[in-house]
């Protein structure tokens, strides 16, 4: 994400709030760019979900990379939107959305 794309101040708060309100909504162009930036990362070490009960429960997990098993983490979710929110917060806390 380029310098000009970094959400700041009230704009950033608005975009975070919009995503948390509905992760699957049609997002604003600014928020969509932020999401592309958060998601377009190398696979190794990436947070993913593992479906542990079809259509009902999903567990947070981390990809190990080529030839490596998937590492199961906590927590377990019963709502995919809540899982999206959880990972979004983790990534934002790590500053990934700021071009880190």
């Amino acid at each position, binding site marked *: 994400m380029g310098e000009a794309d970094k959400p700041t101040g009230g704009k950033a708060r608005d975009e975070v709030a919009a995503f948390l309100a509905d992760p699957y909504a*049609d997002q604003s162009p600014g928020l969509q760019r932020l*999401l592309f930036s958060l*998601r377009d990362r190398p696979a190794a070490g990436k947070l*993913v979900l593992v*479906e542990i009960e*079809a259509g*009902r429960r999903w567990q947070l997990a981390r*990809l190990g990379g080529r*030839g490596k098993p998937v590492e199961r983490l906590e927590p377990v979710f019963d709502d995919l939107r809540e899982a999206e929110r959880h990972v979004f917060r983790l990534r934002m806390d790590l500053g990934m959305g700021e071009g880190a």
Partner: protein
Amino acid sequence: MIRDPDFGITGYTDRWSYRPGDTVSLHLTADAPSMASLALHRFRRFTPKDGAFELATERVEIGCDPFAIVPQQTRIGSCFEAALPDAAGLAQAFTLAVLARPTSIAEDGNGLLALASAAGALALDLLPGGSLALAVDGESAIALGGALPAGHWRALALTFDAARQTVGLAVHTPGGIRAATAPVPAGLFSGDLALTLASGRAPRTFNGRLEAPIVWRGALDPQEAFCRLEAFAAGAADLGPDTVAAWDFSRRMDSAVAVDAGPHGRDGRFVNLPTRAVKGARWTGSEQSFKHAPRDYASVHFHEDDLADAGWARAAAVALPETLDSGLYFLEIAGEAGCDVLPIFVTPKRRGAAAKLAFVAPTFTYLAYVNDRCLLHGANPEVLANRLLVLTPGDCHLAAHPEYGLSLYDTHADGAGVAYASRRRPCLTLRHTQRAWQGGIGGGLWNFGADLLILSWLEREGLAYEIVTDDDLDADPAALRPYDCVLTGSHPEYHTTASHDAFGGFLAAGGRLVYLGGNGFYWRVSTHPDHPETIELRRAEDGNRSWAAEPGEYYHAFDGAYGGLWRRNGRPPQALVGVGYTGQGFFRSHPYRYGEGCLDPRVSFLFEEPPAPGERLGATGVSGGGAAGIEIDRADTALGTPDHALVIASAAGFDDTYVLANEEVLVNRPTVVGHLTPLLRADLVFFETGAGGAVLSTGSVAFAGTLGDLPEDNDAARLVRRAVDRFLDPAPFPDPEAAR
């Protein structure tokens, strides 16, 4: 009630397509020896239920006793093997020379060659930094640091002299010949010798290219060996009377046999199908095909993760009843170790005898995607999915078992694209429980899973149908002729020349086709004469590619065909089915909106009452929430859509996660996404073929997600049902000339 696979037992069948009376060979493994039983089920329904899908089947009695499952090992990695008989006299002295170009070197090394006899053995490994390590009877003998770095061709010579009790290793480097010798015990070799190239003592096989391996009697001076190796690589006919074997990798490119060009015919064989028809040490760029310049393509590319046949022992065999109806079946293997469920297609004994409607199972496309690991370590697809990646138990099992091999979407450990895919291995993505990020928000059904919805719809409608697979079409391009109407799957993307011809020939003879998918008839593949369960793909020149074939390597080894897009081979999909791939997005799907074309009397058979232009079609679905989306096709007369084709409905205005197909972009620009380009649309098209037949094309992968959606009665399903009813009616469609 059929169980879900838990992969405590894992297996594969010898083929995916059988006829009644055929025997299915089951190859199974488990963590510990255990007993299991087998049940055969016929597919009936696959319906959305509480956020998941419910599979309904009918059990077929086959009378199979419980059987034992023994843990199996998978030998992954390709190599070359040849037997050198005692009569060759190699136990006294020999020289082996070869050209080698590593492409990557593992931390724990890669095997380069091995020679073994009943008495002793030597092995040469490649270590990080390009160092060579020769071991004699397991003991280190010679080390040449940095002699064979990745990315460079080098000539190697290995000499053995029993009289002097020495072994020598020499490498021709730009700085001159680097050589070393070491003592060996007396009688190191006796009797027959087994030669292996691209495999040694290291746990992994070789990543890289080898060319022109040649063996002479006697221990030659390295300089002489390199001169004679160069002459052989250049195509010299006279290899010398002391030649024991000289394998010319430019010959029989379509075979797993490595031809001995020497006087004794000591052919070798390639194990696990290394990639052939690749550029060799002599390639200059002046020719692009091995057929035009064989000496430029006398190289073979080995990979530590090639896999053509897992080689598991047969755990059980089951004879399919002679009276079995054509359809999709599941083999449920269950025991104390767990469960696996393997789908098979049963094709009719005599095509067209039980039904005039056929579903073509796109087995080549299923195979291309088998064990797709892009979500595990490849091009990160979360940005394409526009949501978190959700892994299935099958995906996790795949991650834990790299020895089950790669898909045509993956890259090898050395970064080269995976050009070959085989079914003789656990194919974990071919399960009814598999979901994929490509399937859009909602059900996550993709390929085989999405096609279950089409079959479920056929069962729900009570339409009699038979199944034909891509493999059948490849073997017999006339296989569709007995049918009046043919349905495709949701994503019939990969076709051989013969399977493509089968569709074209069917339409030319007056057949009626409902193309129920998107991005169909896109990539060209070939089948291997010696390994019919394998296909080859070159991601050449253009198209959406998860890897790109190297320049100069666009021609298939299996049949010499020019690989890549069918569009680049003079067969754009629009010329066959009226629409062709235009773009993709994997998050949300949309409804079509009817256009003026829906009012044309030529398509009145599709409606009880003609809809009004602007009305929506397919506003629900389990593949992204609408009938149009995921991978979409558009009509385009410049690409072959018949002038008289009617665009009945279109979906446009996609969100910015949709991107235009690469082949539509000459100069990249920021308007290749979403609603900014008019080319990003899904067109629902009808046209008459001129031979009394007709085509209805949906141009959308997501369409199957609406066909199989609840409620059972939906507008998209009604439209397809009316099309099928008319297409089964023998009354010819009028000549399109008359329609103009």
